[in-house]
């Protein structure tokens, strides 16, 4: 099932992500959890995540040129950004999104 989870009520200026994942594959499950965590922490008010299970919609991966799973695409705001992997390295993700990384302790 390809769901859009309405996490936020104000889509204007929201961060919109699309996650291509492969069913219950370990990396995919971890990526989903990590993406939720990042969104809740950094954009609690304004984010949306589209989920595409390539095992259920395999042709979608071909048309969208998705090579590996999991892959996250940031659709909004521009410019588009592609991140591959289970997002376990949060700092890489934050740097790519142009967000301040973990406060120094």
């Amino acid at each position, binding site marked *: 099932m390809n769901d859009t989870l309405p996490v936020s009520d104000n889509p204007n200026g929201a961060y919109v992500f699309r996650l*291509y994942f492969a069913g219950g594959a370990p990396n995919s499950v971890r990526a989903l959890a990590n993406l939720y965590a990042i969104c809740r922490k950094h954009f609690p008010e304004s984010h949306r995540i589209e989920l595409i299970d390539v095992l259920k919609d395999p042709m979608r991966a071909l048309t969208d040129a998705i090579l*590996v799973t999991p892959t996250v695409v940031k659709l909004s705001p521009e410019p588009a950004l*592609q991140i*591959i992997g289970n997002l376990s*390295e*949060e700092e890489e993700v934050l740097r790519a999104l142009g967000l301040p990384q973990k406060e120094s302790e």
Partner: protein
Amino acid sequence: MSDKKRAGFLEKISSGVEGFDDITAGGLPLRHTTLLMGGPGCGKTVFALQMLVSGAMRHHAPGIFVAFEERAHLVSANAETFGWDMRGLEKKKKLFFVDACMRSDVVKSGAFDLTGLLAALEAKAREMGAKLIVFDAIDVLLNLLDDPAAECRELYRLHEWLMRHELTGVLTTKIDDNAPATAQRYGFMPFMADCAVLLHQRVTDRVAVRSMRVLKYRGSPHVLNEVPFVIGPEGVEVGSSNGVHPEPQPFKDRVSTGIERLDEMLGGGFYRGTNALITASSGAGKSMLAGVFIEAACRRGERALFISFDENSHDIERDLATVSIPLAPHLASGLLRMEAVRTEAASSEEHFMRIKRLITEHHPRCVAIDPLSALARVGGGLAARAVAERLIYLCRNAGVTVLFTSLLEGFDQQLETTTLHVSTISDSWIQVTYALESGARNRALSIIKSRGSKHSNQQRELIFSDTGISLADPPSPAVEAASNHESAVSAGEESQ
């Protein structure tokens, strides 16, 4: 073919490259994985494409090409230059290109795997009934993983996936000849594949020479040696002398050498469809003998081809005119085609391709190649010899009578010192040397061998005069020992 029904018998599918099928006893292992390894520009992608096109066109095996390095549309466009109808095949759903080039600005965070791509390919393969699949530049994908354990794991995942879906897989990967580290890094790859082929491009004598070697082929015999190959206008062509067997030609019709007395010595001339080798000392008249043979063919109304290495066609024409052998009318009528080739301009393999193309285009019945020994100067002796052999087989299969000349080098005239050692496979072999007779240096012609017919064992003086080319009278049989001297004396009176 009851063998094929035996359990465990390895079925094969033609690779679309005749020479490769020869050295692997039939082509690629069906429903198994083949690995093509080699440095950049060595022809991996073209070879893989050719397999795919051949499968799709001739073996009811639709295929998928996954391009990891080059953009898929560029690969497809490149393939069109070999005359393969990629767009047509794609339209008919016999071929499908997957653009799998990773964006350069992609960010990596944590582990990932190929599950998604394989799920997509699985769906596509089912939809089009694909039997073949090429993963081009798999090393690019593995580099992305950047972790030896992950690389190995994903490659096994891929291999296992191919086996499960009974697909015939071809993986290509870059290996740097000069960096053993890369070979070591991907050392597990040939282990995983059922057939592994190493492609090379080396520079020998300043000429680039391609070769390939089948490293392993599980469950199948294969040629162990390195074999030369070229990428010509129609794709990859592998030169396997091991597998090529010329069709035996019935020795029937005779073809004139252009010299009446030489025909007599040979029992009527060369047999049609065979090859003749003329070895001669420098200046002894190789090109003249080639020319007189070609001119005679044209006079009979046969199409002919004269290929000269490193000598201008006009010079040859002029030299032959001095002995009253006119080529100009035959050039004008289109019966004769002359091609002057610069030896150094290409490798022996490329020369072979060019000669092959000329023969296909012009459809000659008689061909002269002057001198064949020029080939030995480019691309190393072994490759040149293989090329010479294939030239001979090519002509024989086409029913073309071919005359090769070769320069005799060295002092011992009894030994064949042509660099190519083709005399063992030539049907007739004529030698022209110099004989010193009473203070005169005369050309002496003898027939060393002539397959399938009796031939004269005499040595005769070869005479070039402004009225033509001829042989002196035979020496009288009574004075065998002094025969050379006799013939030399009579030669003066002979010349028509």
